[in-house]
């Protein structure tokens, strides 16, 4: 049984990697077939939560992932409505996960995709990400917990799938309500229905396999369990092969698409992202997937990322290809402090 499961997660990783390369070919920004952070940020822009003209588009990939996870959870009788495990703390953690991700310019998934495109800055990001996870693991070992969730009514769990469905209807039927970038990454997009279908497939597979970027490194270190890390590796290998096949592999630090080469801040941004994600129990991708399966705590985390992304652009904290901003550096430092305080305050050993 364990063998069979690994086949599925390798297959899932391979599909994600190849789909990412194809989405770029079909119009998505370079090395950004998928990026949960970027796509939530674009969606925040489309909804006018921020007004950065280059990053506004309601990305169907995100909508598809949440709905794909929802459908798979229903089919597998795994739609399990729960919530109430420190929702406000999760909101704040997710907010700063986004601040860290937009310092680096990518969620952990895009980090792997950037690496597979030859962007060596992502290697620095990966080291930072792993360091953040190691710090998070130390707190988990000390008894870090955001406390129990409780069972909730079906409607609570249906909120997120319904909200993204409404968003999709608006995107297709009433696009004038939204804002769309005319230049920059937000203007680069694969056809709506292709993006939706890819999102649905990836969402369904990610739900089934529990694919998680942060869980990969965490479980390998904590339990010597390499199951999730296998998925992470499969994405990298598939995207690498795909990029070579498309002639889209360009190794180097300089001039990488939608990236900057400030080592220190790439490292710190991803360290914040990794640490915050461990404390949340999963990477941004995993939070999206869980939000489709009835997990209200993850739905709150997705909203935290949405608001975080809006703040990043409203207050000049998001990096660009020109590099990090002063506000972004302050945001990452504040984020590291806040997240560490949350980690310490929730790590008191209970009973024995």
């Amino acid at each position, binding site marked *: 049984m*364990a063998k069979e499961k690994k086949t599925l997660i390798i297959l899932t990783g391979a599909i994600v990697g190849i789909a990412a390369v194809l989405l770029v070919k079909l119009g998505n920004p370079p090395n950004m077939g998928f990026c949960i952070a970027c796509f939530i940020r674009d969606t925040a822009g489309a909804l006018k939560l921020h007004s950065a003209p280059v990053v506004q588009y309601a990305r169907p990939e995100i909508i598809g992932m949440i709905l794909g996870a929802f459908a798979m959870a229903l089919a597998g009788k795994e739609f399990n409505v729960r919530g109430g495990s420190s929702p406000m703390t999760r909101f704040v953690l997710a907010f700063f996960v986004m601040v860290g991700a937009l310092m680096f310019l990518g969620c952990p998934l895009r980090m792997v995709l950037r690496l597979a495109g030859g962007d060596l800055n992502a290697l620095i990001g990966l080291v930072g990400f792993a360091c953040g996870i190691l710090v998070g693991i130390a707190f988990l070992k000390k008894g870090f917990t955001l406390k*129990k969730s409780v069972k909730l009514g079906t409607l609570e769990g249906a909120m997120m799938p319904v909200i993204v469905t409404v968003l999709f209807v608006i995107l297709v039927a009433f696009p004038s309500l939204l804002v769309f970038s005319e230049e920059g990454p937000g203007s680069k997009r694969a056809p709506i229905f292709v993006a939706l279908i890819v999102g649905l497939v990836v969402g369904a597979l990610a739900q089934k396999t*529990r694919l998680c970027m942060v869980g990969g490194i*965490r479980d390998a270190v*904590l339990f010597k369990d390499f199951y999730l890390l296998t998925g992470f590796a499969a994405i990298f290998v598939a995207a690498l092969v795909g990029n070579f096949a498309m002639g889209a592999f360009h190794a180097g630090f300089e001039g990488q698409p939608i990236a900057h080469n400030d080592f220190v801040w790439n490292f710190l941004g991803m360290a914040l992202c990794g640490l915050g994600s461990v404390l949340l*129990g999963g990477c941004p991708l995993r939070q999206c997937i869980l939000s489709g399966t009835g997990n209200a705590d993850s739905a709150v985390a997705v909203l935290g990322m949405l608001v975080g992304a809006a703040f990043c652009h409203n207050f000049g904290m998001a990096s660009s290809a020109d590099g990090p901003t002063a506000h972004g550096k302050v945001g990452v430092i504040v984020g590291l402090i806040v997240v560490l305080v949350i980690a310490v305050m929730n790590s008191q050993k209970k009973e024995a």
Partner: protein
Amino acid sequence: MKTVDARGYSCPEPVIMTQNAVKEGLPVTILVDSMTPVKNISRFAGNKGLKMSYTETDEGDFEIVLE
């Protein structure tokens, strides 16, 4: 038998709770509320060479026994 109630805790806390309980001796019963921790604990048991069985309760939770 020692029972660990890991229902409601998010990933990876149920596995850490299981790990701590197993250190104190077997057999251990663990209650969880979804298939995710069941599968996580199943891999943990596999790595440690423990025998695992589980049943679904009337409330839709899962009762895992490790020995």
